[in-house]
Structures are given as structure tokens and as C-alpha cells.
């Protein structure tokens, strides 16, 4: 390759670093939304690079559904300690207790949708004016439409039919009081890019991304981890499988895949051979054709 030419991963890294610095410069009070998943872990690494040798100049915020994989929480706490960063935990349970959000009913209740209430509340409470999300355009068709700097009105809503122009590397963070922006530094990354980056940067990830034995229930074409948060329905059986997670989110809607991948190179091979998108294991997206767009309009991640 040409001496003055960057590989695709380096281009993506440089783009994301630029975006993060732009947010730190244009906004009063940014926050990084941290789920403990691989995309937010990569975001944290990029933030370290963007502001090094200074510390990351904004807090991390975890919207906690209460339905967590223990391993993720442990990982989160260790990372925060290592970074010396501030961690804010906004609890969905608290939103429910305060009567702001109502728990879903039925056999497959999920707190995925009501996280939005907690998220918007926390943004308002802490007066955050920009929130970094790890969303990628290759994940989902509504996400494929979103700008790097994505405007939210005073109710936290996204208007996909009226997005701002965003030319070259000029990013417009102008807003009215009470409005905020969601910013997606990983917009142009694919699932493969994220894994390749984790590999070349040797970034630690929660070990549930690797193969392990777990009690699971087969539902809607994927395996859900057996936990106190799901009800095993009639005709379903709990079985032990060697599985791993392609994405990590709320336990009730994050499906696992059967896999023997126990190192990052194996995961990369699996991703290259995958015939389904990674969100294919997410039951939250399968609720309707425009499930993601509808949630995003309301203020979801």
C-alpha cells in the first residue's frame, strides 16, 4: 500500500477520534452511553486515544435494565476503575418504581423499550447535551439512515424525515435549550471492523463473547439464557449448550449462538461465515418491521 495511505481500520479509527474531539469541543456536557457490549468497549478505547494523555473528559453512563449478565457488570466496574472514569448508573427499576415506566406484560416481557424512559430522564437530570452511542449503520435499516450528529428535540425524539445536512467533516451541534444530540462515532464500522479492531488493539472483552456452557431456552429461532428474568413457556425446555453471544444487551432479548469460538480469531472467522446479521439474535428487533425506527423516534439509543 501507498506510504501515505491508511488502511480501512485506521481510517475508521481516525474518523471516530475526530468525531469525539468535535463533541468535546462543541458541547458543554457530553456523556458516553456504555452498555458493556463490544461496541461501547471500542468507543471507550477510541475516547482514550482521542484525549490521551488527558483522561476521558466525560462520564460513562449505563442504562441498567436490571436484567444483566453478571459478567458484563463485573467487566464494566473493572474497566471504569482502570480508566479512573466517572460511572453513572441509571436504573430502569427505579423508573418503574417511580411510576414513570410500566413493565411489559405477557410471556416475553422485556425492558428494552422502557429503557428509553430511563435514558431520557437521566439525560435531562444530568443536563447532558450530547450522548455518544455505539450504534452502527450496518446493524439495522433505520440506523443506516442516521447522521453522525443526530439531533433530538426537547422530548428526546428523532425526526428521520427531516435530518440536518452533514457535509464532509463539518458537524453542526447547534441546538436550542433542552434539545440534545446523539452522536455515533462508529457509524461507518461494520461488525467485522469492530472485531478486527478488537483483535489488532488487543482490547479485553467480557468472556461471554467466547464459548461457554450455559443453560438456554430455544425461542424465536435463537437461544435465550435461562435466568430469573424469563419465564420458560409450555413446550420449551431448558438445555445446556456450548454457546456464545454475538451481541450483549438485556438478558431477556439477547440471543446466543451455538459456537466453539474461544479466541478472537475464531470469532472473526465465525463473523465472516455468518449467514445472519448480528441483530438476528435480538428478539427486540423482531417485534415489527419498523421496531427500531419506532423506538428510535421515541428516543431510544
Amino acid at each position, binding site marked *: *500500500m*501507498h506510504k*501515505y*495511505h*491508511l*488502511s*480501512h*481500520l485506521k*481510517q*475508521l479509527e*481516525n*474518523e471516530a*477520534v*475526530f468525531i469525539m*474531539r*468535535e463533541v468535546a*469541543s462543541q458541547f458543554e456536557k457530553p456523556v458516553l452511553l456504555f452498555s458493556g457490549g463490544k461496541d461501547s468497549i471500542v468507543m471507550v478505547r477510541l475516547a*482514550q*486515544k*482521542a*484525549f*490521551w*494523555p*488527558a*483522561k476521558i473528559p466525560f462520564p460513562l453512563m449505563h442504562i441498567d435494565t436490571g436484567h444483566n449478565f453478571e459478567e458484563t457488570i463485573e467487566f464494566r466496574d473493572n474497566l471504569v476503575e482502570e480508566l479512573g472514569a466517572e460511572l453513572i448508573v441509571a436504573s430502569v427499576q427505579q423508573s418503574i418504581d417511580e411510576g414513570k415506566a410500566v413493565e411489559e406484560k405477557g410471556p416475553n416481557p422485556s425492558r428494552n423499550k422502557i429503557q428509553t424512559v430511563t435514558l431520557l430522564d437521566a439525560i435531562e437530570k444530568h443536563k447532558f447535551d450530547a450522548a455518544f452511542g455505539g450504534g452502527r449503520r*450496518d446493524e*439495522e*435499516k*433505520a*440506523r*443506516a*439512515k442516521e447522521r453522525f450528529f443526530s439531533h433530538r428535540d426537547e422530548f428526546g425524539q428523532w425526526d*428521520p*424525515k427531516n*435530518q440536518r*445536512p*452533514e*457535509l*464532509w*467533516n*463539518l458537524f*453542526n451541534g*447547534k441546538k436550542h435549550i433542552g434539545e440534545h444530540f446523539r452522536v455515533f462515532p462508529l*457509524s461507518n464500522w*461494520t461488525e*467485522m471492523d469492530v472485531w*478486527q479492531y478488537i483483535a*489488532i488493539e488487543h482490547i479485553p472483552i467480557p468472556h461471554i463473547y467466547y464459548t461457554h456452557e450455559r443453560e438456554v431456552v430455544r425461542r424465536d429461532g435463537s437461544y435465550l439464557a435461562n435466568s430469573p428474568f424469563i419465564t420458560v413457556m409450555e413446550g420449551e425446555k431448558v438445555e445446556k449448550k456450548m454457546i456464545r453471544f454475538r451481541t450483549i444487551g438485556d438478558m431477556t432479548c439477547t440471543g446466543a449462538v451455538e459456537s466453539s469460538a474461544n479466541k478472537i*480469531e475464531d470469532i*472473526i*472467522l465465525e463473523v*465472516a*461465515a455468518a*449467514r*445472519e446479521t448480528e441483530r*438476528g439474535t435480538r428478539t427486540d428487533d423482531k417485534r415489527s*418491521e*419498523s421496531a427500531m*425506527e*419506532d423506538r428510535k423516534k421515541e428516543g431510544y439509543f
Partner: protein
Amino acid sequence: MIDTINEFSTADYLNMDLLRFTTAGSVDDGKSTLIGRLLHDTKSIFEDQLIAVEQASKKMGDHQVNLALLTDGLRAEREQGITIDVAYRYFATPKRKFIIADTPGHIQYTRNMVTGASTANLAVVLVDARHGVVEQTRRHAFIASLLQIKHLLICINKMDLVEYKEEVFNDIREDFDDFSSKLEIQDIQYIPISALKGDNVVEKSTNMPWYQGSTFLYTLENVHIASDYNLVDCRFPVQMVIQAQSEDQPGFKGYAGKIEGGIFKPGDEVIALPSGFTTKVKSIDTMNGLMDEAFPPQSVLMNLEDDHIDISRGDMIVKPNNQPQIGQDIEMMVCWLNEKQMVLGGKYAIRHTTKMPNA
């Protein structure tokens, strides 16, 4: 997903090249079909995506699978069967990784088209072989030129509907050639294709033996983009000042930003604008160590010999022997993208690199 997994698991993959391209054309020129064909033939569509598109097509009463639904991701777009905003799609071949910005053809969504096209290395403009060069073709090519896209690929589509005739291709090519003298794009190529039938998209067409050129995909894989950046005029707009106190770096102060042009090296004499103070580059730092040189589009942290100079966001670091012009009166062409009309003599904020003056 990909047949040749091994090619992707080697170190080559980590060193892959990236091409960003945008597709434009009038409403029914077959843009979405072309992208659908490209993704399909390079095996970049996942099974669950294809099933979802099949189901959506059926729901809308289409007998065929409508590949446009792959990129028309918004409810309003699917309901109306139009593209409102740019959609990004990603795919890779063993040669390159690609980012496609699939942009709307309707004139009222031009600002979205411009958004998608602005970051492209290459613009694909589709022309319907039956209609030839139309106003929208010229508009899109002109916008690509305004945005300073370096490469233009004119795909003359629906060749199957004009019996794959060479004259049709040549006439359209000549027609566009005449117009293209008004453009600032040096590299313009023409390819006769049928997106629907797959002629010259991924596979070379047997229906047009008279065409000796490359296929669409081959062109995308091989267009030379390494020299697209300006490596001569050194421009480093300061994005933010980074200060830190640590044991190894007491009182660290550096300037963070993206190299917009030229090559900077430690020891280079530099001048900070607008103040005009000169100093030298002490080092170019990253979390992973020092850099020997920095070039576009790298985001770096520059450390200067004299760190008492007043430099802040919006200032620009350049080299003394190659300075940009500074002035208050500028003549420029304005492309107005808002529904509200521009007010002559009104006050507007201008964003120029990391600077935001009023005008």
C-alpha cells in the same frame, strides 16, 4: 457469508483499502437495483435481511423481490416507495472494503443527496440508456464536482432495453463528454450495464462484445484513490487543546486535530494562524507512541517547541513557506439547502474547518 473466508482471516484484511462511493441518478434509473445486484452478486446480503425484504415485498404486493427495500429503511420510504434520506451500505471484496451512500434522486431531497455524496471518493451517476443524459444527470454530476469528488463513473443502464447497441452507448458518452468540460472532475469513466440482468456489473457481459472496458465492480476495486489527498499544502486546523498532568508528562499541552493537507514531521518549522507566531513541531504523539510523520486524514496530537503561544480551537497551523490566503472579503458560490430562502445581507454563521465565524 463469504465463500473465501481464508482471504479475510489473513493479515491482508487488516491492511485493506477503503473506497467510499455514492450513487445518484433520476428516480427510475435503477439505482437501487444496481446496488441490490452488487450486494447480491458479491454475497453481501444476509439471509435474514433477504427474508425480511421478501416479506416486505409481498406485503406491498410486489411479485418480485424488491431489492430497493434493502436500503429504503424508513417507514415513510417503504410506504411511498421513494428514497428520502441517504442510506449507507457496507460490503467487502478481497480487494477492498466499500461504503456505499445510496442517495435520494428526488430534487426536494437534494440536501440529503449532498450529505451522502460529500464524503465519497467516487460518484456513480446512472443514466437510462433509453433517455440519455437528462437534467438530473447533469445536476448530479455538477454537484459531485462542486463537492470535489475526484472520480466520476457514468453507468449507462438498461442496455438490455436498447438491444445492447454500441451506438446508444457512444451517443450518450459523447453527449456527456461535451457537458463534462464544465466539471472539475479529471477522472470520468463510462460503463454500459444492465443492473437488472447483471451485464457488466460483477460479471463481464457476453451481450456487449464491443465493450472492452472493465466491469462496474472491477472499476470500483481498482480506481486509484491513493493520490486523492493533498500531500503538498500543509494545513492543520486545531480542534482542541489537550492539557494533562501526569508523572511522565508534567504540564503536557498539545494540539489535537485532523491533518487536512500536507505532511508534518517533528522538527518542521510551523506558523500558527491568525496570530503569526512561528515555532517548531516538537513531536506528534499518540497513545501508542510517537509518530515520525502525520498526513491526511489522520487525527493527531501535535506538540510544539514553544507552548506559550496562544493557540486555540479554530486556529490553523501551517508552514511559513506555504500559507493560505487570509482575508475578510471572499467571493464564493453558496448552495442553499434550507426551505427558507436566504436573506441577502443577512447574518449567517459559517463553519470553516473548526472555526465558526459570523458573516
